Structure formats: structure tokens, C-alpha cells
């Protein structure tokens, strides 16, 4: 597995000194770390066997958006598009916004480079997680988004990492650093898509200073052959609010670690996620919320639908430290199995070391609700169609919670498509 590094090292692009130092440290950490096996508790249900194949360094592509099959939500804000890990100026758009600075690491000016160097890896130490070390080792063109103190970004910022089909399975690395300064506000959408075989090692760090509000979505819409091992790591200072929304359509292997650190009192996190798997796909979400200080709240909801021979893993850890009195944390994970051979391993893990806290958790693997099914059938909707509609509704209920209308408009028809639901009417047009 140490070979994973080789193709990327060979393709290494020149880097400024501060970046080069980071790479070397990452490389050292990667080379000295053991890759997790299924004997490791956190990897019990997810095998990395699929990574044991020769990967090539990703190649630059010049295909048009159409040729790439690139379909993006119309968010109307700035958009940076990377194809096979390479920035594509022609597909990107920069909308001037005085509230933000949005740069690639390679073009960061001196003060931006200083900020990146200061914050990158501060939430996720490269030596803690082998795949973070791998990400550090091959760091090339990451993205830095800074939302300036007291400012509100006018429009959502969209970051797209797309893979084009290549002859050999290609390896990619993605890195995003968001620094939301005090009392700033912004919306960020991360978008992973593409076709064919690829392995992406994606890593995102969100830093929310006191009073900052960040709406964040991470969409994993890659092809069924895609491999992705990635993470989202966030730090919330006093009274910061993070809304983070995760979508994963299946892939051969997707493992996403989400770690949210409540570091300042009054911080709030709403974490929603959904995964849809079929065939022999495998998705593994490991979430961990660290409540280190008092008076923070977490509201976490994940839902999944797993069919055929697919398997899903959800591990939701909430860790309430001894000082974290008056914590309010809720975690719910509901799964629907649509075939007898599908599998879900779900485990809420509450570790509570403070006594004055309100915690609720629930994890279920269930069938669709009988009384809902009957209700639809009394209205003439045939049973198979009713099941489709209910599956769609089960997932769409989470989409409806999201505030960004353009994102809902993008996801709903894709969901309907996925389930094969004949939803001729888009409800958002209904009121007109």
C-alpha cells in the first residue's frame, strides 16, 4: 500500500517552501504509519482491499464540461473546478465578493500563504490519520477560502472535483481549507463527481472563529467504480454555527470521517447525511463530535437506503468531555434495507463524562412504514410505485431541511431518478 504514494510523487509539481515542508512531513508520517486493517475497530466493516491495485498519477484533461458529463447545481456564486485534480480555469468562475478571499494554494499571496501555513492541519494533524498524512505528502493545489471578519458572503462558493474516465485507475488528492473569521457567514458546497475508476483522497478542514456561521455541503456523486477515502474536520469556537450536509451515492468504496470539535461555548452543529447504495457498493461514514466545553449543541441525522448486495457502515460517536456540562446532543441514524442481501452496520457511540447533559440517540434498521404504504395504495398508487415514493420521501425529507434552494432543486430530480420515481411535478413549482 505504500505504493499509493509513488505515482503522485513521480508527478510532483514544484511547490513553495512552506508547502514542500508540509509534504515531506506528510510523506514521513505516511511511510512510517501502518494502514488500518479490519482488526482495527474503526475499520472493522470496511476493507481497503480495493486500494491494492496499481494506480497511475492522474492526467490533465482538456475535455469540455459536456464531454465530461459535468452537471452542476446552479448556485450563482464563485466556482472552482478541478478535473483529475488539475484546476480548469475555463470551467471555473470567479464572482467578485468583498467578503471572501478564494485562492488556490499555488497562487496564494504572502499573507494568504502565512494563513494557510498557520491553519492547515491545525484541525487534523497529519500524523493522526494515515490518509491525512498521504494527503499532506502529495499536497499540490489545495483551495483556501477565507471569509473576512464580520462579513457575509453574497453567494455560495462551489468547489468541484471531477474525474474523467482514464485508461488506468488514477489517484487524486483534494484539499480544502475554510477559515471563517469572527462573525462571518458563508455557504460552501463541495462536489465530487466523475466517471470510471479513480481513487480520491479528499480532505477538508473548516475553522469557524467565534460567532461564525457556515453552511457546508459535501456531495459525493462519483461513479459506482469510484474509491474515496476522505475526511471533514471542523473546529468551532464560541457561538459558531456549522450546518454540514453530506450526500453519498454509492461507490465501490467510500469512507468518510467527519470530526467536529466544539471548542468554544455556545457552538452549534447541525449535521445531516444520507447515503444510497446498491449493487455491491460500500459506504462508511464515521462521525465523531467532540464536546470539549459546556453549552454546545449537536443535532445529527443520517439516513441510508441500502439495496442489492451493498453494505453501509455508520458509526456515530459523541464524546462529551468532563467539562462539557449543559451539552445537548441528539443523534439519529435510520436505515432502510431494500433487499435481503443488503447489509448495514450502525452503531451510535455515546461517551459521556459530564453529568448535566441532555443526550438522545437512536439507530434503526427498518422496513418502510406499513401504514404509509397502505395510505398510498388506498389512493390508487400500486404497491411497487408506493415503495419507490416512500423511499424517495425517506431521503428527501433530509434534503427538504437544507436551506439552499438551488441545492434542493439540484438534488431532488436526481433522487427521483435514482429511485425511478415518476415525479412529474416538481413541488417547488406548485405554488406559483
Amino acid at each position, binding site marked *: 500500500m505504500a505504493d499509493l504514494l509513488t505515482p503522485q510523487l513521480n508527478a510532483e509539481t514544484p511547490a513553495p517552501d512552506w508547502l514542500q515542508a508540509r509534504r515531506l512531513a506528510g510523506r514521513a508520517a505516511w511511510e512510517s504509519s501502518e494502514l488500518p486493517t479490519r482488526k482495527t475497530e474503526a475499520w472493522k466493516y470496511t476493507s481497503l482491499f480495493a486500494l491494492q491495485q496499481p494506480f497511475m498519477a492522474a492526467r490533465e484533461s482538456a475535455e469540455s464540461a459536456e464531454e465530461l458529463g459535468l452537471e452542476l447545481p446552479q448556485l450563482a456564486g464563485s466556482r472552482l473546478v478541478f478535473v483529475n485534480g488539475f484546476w480548469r480555469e475555463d470551467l471555473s468562475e470567479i464572482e467578485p465578493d468583498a467578503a471572501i478571499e478564494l485562492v488556490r494554494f499555488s497562487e496564494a499571496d504572502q499573507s494568504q500563504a502565512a494563513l494557510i501555513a498557520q491553519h492547515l492541519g491545525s484541525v487534523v494533524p497529519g500524523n493522526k490519520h494515515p490518509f491525512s498524512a498521504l494527503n499532506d505528502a502529495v499536497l499540490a493545489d489545495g483551495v483556501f477560502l477565507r471569509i473576512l471578519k464580520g462579513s457575509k458572503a453574497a453567494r455560495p462558493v462551489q468547489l468541484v472535483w471531477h474525474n474523467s474516465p482514464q485508461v488506468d485507475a488514477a489517484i487524486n488528492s483534494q484539499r480544502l481549507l475554510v477559515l471563517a473569521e469572527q462573525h462571518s457567514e458563508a455557504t460552501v458546497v463541495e462536489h465530487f463527481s466523475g466517471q470510471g475508476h479513480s481513487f480520491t483522497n479528499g480532505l477538508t478542514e473548516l475553522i469557524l472563529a467565534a460567532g461564525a456561521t457556515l453552511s457546508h455541503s459535501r456531495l459525493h456523486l462519483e461513479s459506482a467504480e469510484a474509491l474515496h477515502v476522505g475526511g471533514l474536520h471542523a473546529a468551532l469556537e464560541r457561538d459558531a454555527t456549522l450546518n454540514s450536509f453530506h450526500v453519498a451515492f454509492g461507490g465501490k468504496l467510500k469512507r468518510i470521517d467527519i470530526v467536529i470539535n466544539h471548542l468554544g461555548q455556545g457552538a452549534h452543529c447541525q449535521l445531516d447525511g444520507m447515503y444510497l447504495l446498491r449493487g455491491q457498493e460500500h459506504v462508511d461514514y464515521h462521525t465523531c463530535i467532540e464536546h470539549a466545553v459546556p453549552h454546545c449543541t449537536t443535532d445529527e441525522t443520517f439516513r441510508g437506503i441500502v439495496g442489492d448486495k451493498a453494505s453501509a457502515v455508520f458509526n456515530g460517536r459523541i464524546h462529551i468531555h468532563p467539562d462539557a456540562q449543559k451539552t445537548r446532543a441528539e443523534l439519529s441514524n435510520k436505515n432502510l434495507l431494500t433487499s435481503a442481501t443488503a447489509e448495514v452496520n450502525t452503531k451510535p457511540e455515546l461517551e459521556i463524562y459530564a453529568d448535566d447533559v441532555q443526550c438522545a440517540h437512536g439507530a434503526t434498521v427498518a422496513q418502510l412504514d406499513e401504514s404509509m404504504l397502505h395510505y398510498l395504495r388506498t389512493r390508487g398508487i400500486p404497491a411497487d410505485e408506493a415503495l419507490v415514493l416512500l423511499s424517495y420521501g425517506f*431521503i428527501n425529507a433530509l434534503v427538504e431541511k437544507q436551506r439552499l434552494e438551488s441545492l434542493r432543486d439540484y438534488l431532488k430530480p436526481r433522487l427521483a431518478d435514482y429511485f425511478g420515481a415518476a415525479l412529474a411535478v416538481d413541488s417547488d413549482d406548485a405554488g406559483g
Partner: protein
Amino acid sequence: MLSIKDLHAEVEGKNILKGLNLEIREGEVHAIMGPNGSGKSTLGHVLSGRPGYEITQGSVEFLGKDLLELDTEERAHLGLFLAFQYPVEIPGVSNMEFLKASVDAVRESQGASAYDTVGFMRRAREACTAVDLDQAFLKRGVNEGFSGGEKKRNELMQMMLLEPRLCILDETDSGLDIDALQVVASGVNAMRSESRSFLLVTHYQRLLDYIEPDFVHVLADGRIIRSGDKSLALELEAKGYSWLDDGEVA
């Protein structure tokens, strides 16, 4: 149109309907009254084909077909409609999506062409207005977070769009304010026709002031123990159900 003969049904091993007979002809409006727990909703559930309700004896014929042999959706296709006493909430599926799926399915089964989207949306909005619900309810999840009265109006809206042959309204008047009661009554009255029949389950004589029934039945302990015209409802209102118990014993 509907002919129920000696119907016995049980839920979870418990006998609820114990030899029920009822005959509804085209264009008639029947009202069923009866004490709590007597089996009124059970009758609706059984007619709709709800899982968990076992028919142990008897027969039901609807428009010349053996109703009990049909799947729930086939009953709807044939023109049976049940307005639920407690409509189910379905978050994530918008009312509009649901209504379109429902009307499309019923029309398709009847060999009628589907409405185009624009045409359907216009109809849905009209139905919404007719039951005095804000258009915003079309966008919301089916019954999701609706108040009791709003759910009942939503049932009525579905009935209007589906244009069924037999409408069973299970306490559609319960929990309604006076204005809503008028809405329900005028909705039903507007739909009355020579070929459409109604079965109204209600606890209140008041509804029958607005929707004049051809027959009133009293259901007690799983059987119809008294039938009459609308004056029976007035008599019940004045004397209560115990009056009938005595009558039976005597």
C-alpha cells in the same frame, strides 16, 4: 353498488365486526353512527383492504366485483375512496407529488389519459381553494405537520381530485371548526350525483343538517342494530345510544 353480507372481521385475534349487513345503492347517502369502539373505522379499514384485518366470514360486493379479492389499489381504481379518521403523515413526499401520482394511477387504470403537468396543477390548485386550504399546502409533505382540521380538508381535496364512485368519510367532521364543517358539507354536496354514493361515519347529528342522508344506521358491537331515515339521528341525539340497548333487550 355496495353490498355487505354477514361480514365478520377480526384484528389481532379479536372479533370486531360480527355479522354486518349493509346495502348501498347508486346515488345514496348513508350515515353510520355508533359508540366509540363499535367498529366503524374497522369497517372502513376492511373495505380498504388494510393489512392486519382478517375477514372470517361474509362477503362484500362492489360494483359487481368481489371486493375482498382485490388489492387495495385495485379497489381505489374501481372507485372506492376512504377518507381516514387519522390520515397518515408522509414527510419528504410533497402533497403535489402525491396527488399527481395518485390521480395518474387511477386515471391510467381506467384507461383515461394522464393530465399534463400544467393542467393537473391547475386542478390541484382549484381543489385546494375549494377546501379552503392555502396553496402552500401543496408544497408541504403529505399531511406533515398539518393540524387535525387541515388533514381532513386534505382528505377531501383528494376525494375531489379522484372523483370516486363510493366515498367513505370516517369522521371527516370531527375536530372541524364551524367554517370547515361548511366546507366539507358543500364539498360533499357538490359531488353528490346519481352515480356516486357516500357513507358518512359521524358522531354528530349536526353534519347531517348540512348533508342530508337517505339512511341512518346505528353500528354497535360490530353489527348494525338499527336503520332508519334522518329522523333516527335526531332521536339518537336526544336519547343517546342506551335508548337502543333498552330497545334491543325489550
